[in-house]
């Protein structure tokens, strides 16, 4: 993986704070920089503000204070179309993400909204479906696919827009072990910046060299994933628990040469 040197970074979040209209405040000044080509895991317990942060990345929520920039372009109303093309968000529930009658139309939705038509559009769709190994299912209705397949199609819908950064919200949730493995292989094969929001710690360790912990609306830790997961005190303080019998040290020692 490329170290985070190439300017401008894919994602730059500065002092981001946000309160919901009902008064509940979710973010209290988040600072986060993700370099081009990095794969970063965003860890945190339920209710830490992870999803709220994600919704700021493409301007669905507007920062109460602070700024967000994607590849140097600030997230602001005048840039929204471009920002949304650059930031591909894969939501937690593929049923929310897939709303068109066939897989093909669903994948085509984003590029078509950006103005692509005809052969160019078709090529984009086929390429995106190939990358997730779902090209054979193009004409099937999404709700006839298995959960794992739907999640892969959801990734394809976002890849079809050729984003600068891929943001995945709980990519491994509700997947059986085989689907989990297939998705990990796909994500590893992509040459793209990835921000993965999860509380599936082994998955984060497997895919992301770097991790940050979001807790109570601020980033409380930032470092190599293996190191963070090995810090028992830090983990306990932020309600992060490793699965029974899982030793991050052993895994990262085994995995490091491969990465």
């Amino acid at each position, binding site marked *: 993986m490329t170290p985070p040197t190439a300017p401008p970074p894919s994602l730059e979040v500065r002092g981001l704070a946000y309160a919901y209209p009902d008064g509940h405040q979710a973010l209290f000044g988040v600072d986060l920089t993700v370099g081009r080509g990095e794969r970063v895991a965003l860890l945190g317990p339920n209710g830490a503000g992870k999803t709220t942060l994600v919704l700021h990345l493409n301007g669905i929520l507007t920062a109460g204070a602070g700024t967000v920039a994607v590849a140097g372009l600030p997230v602001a109303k005048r840039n929204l179309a471009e920002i949304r093309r650059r930031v591909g968000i894969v939501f937690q529930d593929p049923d929310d993400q897939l709303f068109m009658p066939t897989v093909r139309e669903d994948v085509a939705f984003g590029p078509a*909204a950006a103005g692509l038509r005809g052969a160019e559009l078709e090529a984009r769709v086929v390429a995106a479906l190939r990358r997730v190994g779902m090209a054979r299912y193009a004409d099937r209705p999404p709700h006839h696919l298995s959960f794992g397949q739907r999640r892969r199609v959801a990734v394809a819908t976002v890849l079809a827009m050729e984003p600068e950064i891929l943001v995945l919200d709980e990519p491994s949730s509700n997947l059986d072990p085989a689907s989990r493995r297939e998705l990990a292989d796909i994500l590893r094969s992509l040459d793209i910046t990835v921000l993965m929001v999860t509380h599936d710690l082994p998955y984060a360790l497997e895919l992301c060299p770097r991790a940050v912990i979001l807790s109570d609306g601020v980033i409380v830790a930032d470092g190599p994933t293996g190191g963070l997961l090995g810090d028992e005190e830090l983990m306990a303080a932020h309600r992060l628990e490793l699965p029974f019998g899982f030793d991050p040290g052993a895994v990262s020692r085994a995995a490091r040469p491969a990465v």
Partner: protein
Amino acid sequence: MGAGHAHKLYRHGHSPVHGLPPHCKLAAVFCFVVVVVSTPREAVWAFALYGALLAAVAAVARIPAGFLLRRLLIEVPFVAFAVLMPFVVPGEQVTFLGLSLSVPGLWGAWNVLAKGTLGVAASVILASTTELRALLLGLQRLRLPPLLVQIASFMIRYGDVITDEMRRMSIARRSRGFEASGPRHWGVLAKSAGALFIRSYERGERVHLAMVSRGYTGTMPVIDEVTADRTQWAYAAALPVSALAVCLLGWTL
């Protein structure tokens, strides 16, 4: 399911009627209904001809008569009304089977029944041969303001979401031993309506966020261009034009 686009009204098929572009069909049905409504009610035979025209379209579309007739049941409230008319409308009376019926009432009942039924039948044929999404695209092509099309498409999406949530909530209620058996439970049901609204909204909101995240700005992007050529328009025009001929005859005869 987030994407239940197969609506129960639609009958899948590949007939020439199914194949027509949706905006042609919409325009044809609308013109047909206008023609039917402007026909004088005394021209009874004209309505029979209209019926025959619709039957021909249904035959071409391969819609079974039973299906069409079942769908016509939506009209029942109007029929009930029409049946009452001969009794409540004042005017010249005739006696039939010992009942005293008013002549203007009978004409009124006939008028509403005949025109209403033909209108319903035309819409039923339209809905049975056109997918919902295609209907929306058709409306968009007919220059319905985009905001209205957007609301309509969300409405259809939410229709599924609401049904789905309603079923889940009903299961949850029943698993806890609740059965709505009378006005005593209206309070619970009214509260459920509020909860249903919020649950549906929050679910739909997530779908909407996913759409917005992929660049949705209020109009569905055109993925497969639907265009109508001259022959298709001509084909679609067959129904209203022949109806117009009948109507003109009805006025002159």
